[in-house]
């Protein structure tokens, strides 16, 4: 697998008090750490998107509790902390006809950037690398 492809967990969370706590508790109980996350909501349900240190184990534990979880392949673009960085990467993708479905920022120990769900991840990695942009490797998070 491409080292620049990052596995994200997408978890269905009911939009009701305690639902997120229930998911978080399960992850906590098996000592799984969340590196980055994002919460999207509609009126009656939400989707928790999370990058965790052990996705396979997390999926097994969540499924044991009948929580809906799905693996999604995303990419991470390193973004410099200066004006215009987001413009640079999003323009490259846009020019290549690649659509960004959603994204969220993260800050790691030595790396900061933007996780993006795009419609064609492999192609996105290729155009971004060609343009000289740095991509986040799964091992770096």
């Amino acid at each position, binding site marked *: 697998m491409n080292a620049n492809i990052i596995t994200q967990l*997408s978890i269905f969370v009911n939009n009701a008090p305690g639902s997120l706590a229930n998911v978080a508790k399960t992850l906590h109980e098996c000592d799984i750490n969340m590196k980055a996350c994002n919460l999207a909501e509609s009126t*009656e349900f939400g989707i928790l998107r999370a990058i965790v240190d052990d996705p396979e184990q997390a999926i097994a534990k969540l499924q044991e509790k*009948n929580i*809906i979880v*799905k693996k999604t392949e995303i990419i991470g673009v390193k973004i410099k902390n200066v004006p215009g960085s987001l413009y640079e990467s999003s323009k490259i993708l846009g020019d290549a006809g690649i659509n960004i*479905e*959603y994204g969220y920022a993260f800050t790691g120990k030595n790396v900061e950037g933007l996780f993006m769900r795009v419609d064609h991840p492999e192609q996105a990695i290729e155009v971004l690398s060609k343009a000289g942009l740095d991509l986040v490797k799964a091992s770096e998070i």
Partner: protein
Amino acid sequence: MMWNPRIETMPLDKIKEMQRVQLIKLVNNLYSFNKFYHDRMRAANVTPLDIQSLDDITKLPFMVKQDLRDNYPDKMFTVDKSEIVRYHMSSGTSGKPTCVAYTRNDLDYWTEALARSLTAAGLTSDDTIQIAYGYGLFTGGLGLHYGAEKIGATVLPASTGNTQRQLEMMQDLQCTAIACTPSYLTHLITTARQMGIDWKRDMKLRRCILGAEPWSESMRAKFEAETGAKCIDIYGTSEQAGPMFCECEHQHGPHISPDIMYCEILDPDTGESLEPGNKGELVCTMLKKEAMPMIRYKMKDITSINEEPCECGRTSPRLSRITGRSDDMLIIRGINVFPSQIEYTLMRIPQVGDQYMIKVSREGDLDRMIIQVEIKPESFSDKLEDMQRLRAHIESELKKYLNIAVPVELKAPGELPRFEGKAKRIIDTRVF
């Protein structure tokens, strides 16, 4: 004022004798000349000779809505096609419709019943009535239309929809009465408020004829306070002809024309006949229908019958307010919804799981139904847009089959209650 004082004030014993004679004639006729009814009576091991008294009616088999579906469109008609002058149709459960046919006489009796009813409600040829029931396949619009014309009232055939215009017409033509569903009156009241209309100041309205869905005494009080008009309950379904029987001005339940319909009240559990005053399931026999007779038709409405003479002078029996259904049919803003229709629709959508719940409540005076649906794990997407598209798809499928817009909530598998034994998927918190 009475339209037909001879029938409307007939002593109870005379009424029963008239009904007995009519029943015997009807049964003889159907047994002798119609295969459908003949076969049914044979199957129930009963012949016209067994029907001598009015109480003998209990020997006859029941009819139910399913009979109309099974025999769609015309297998239950008992007259030649040349004698049929009109059809009305309703969309039925699981996409299977029902069709009702009328001869000239059937329409005349329907109109006669409404002429008596509207007169009892206090309308005369001086009134202008806006008919805001649907015109067309639904029986409400055309039924009321001919009844109101019969008494010489001025009819404004407004049909449904276009609420602002309805309110403008009501003012411009100084309508003194409106016929519509209670839900639609609620909507008219809300819209009138937004338009700055004061019913008592700007209108001449004195009667609202409300039916096609259950409503309550507390709704009556609110409607009357807002509109200043007396609100009258009207009862009747397409199996009977359409809306037929109104309350009189004393508002103690619709008066039934006894020469047209005979009512029984049965214990829904045992099927035993109940005495007047006791609540049970309403079973109707239409004594005069030609094109499509209805013998012991189970209305599935829970009510009681009152044979006491009314303050208005009428002796014709009255039905009490409908307090529920003996089946699981829901009436949502005037539209009949069977949970089986909802299940049928949902189970045809591949992304939908096995569990769903139907929640019905009343917000203000308006019915609200929400359907909660568990989705299959594999139909879950990390993209909110996909999920919203799935929800919109389920909503549009439901709209197609139910003829009513129902909001859907997507739920994770395992989140809705599981049932051991009989599932209780409907939570109806409305009070009638």
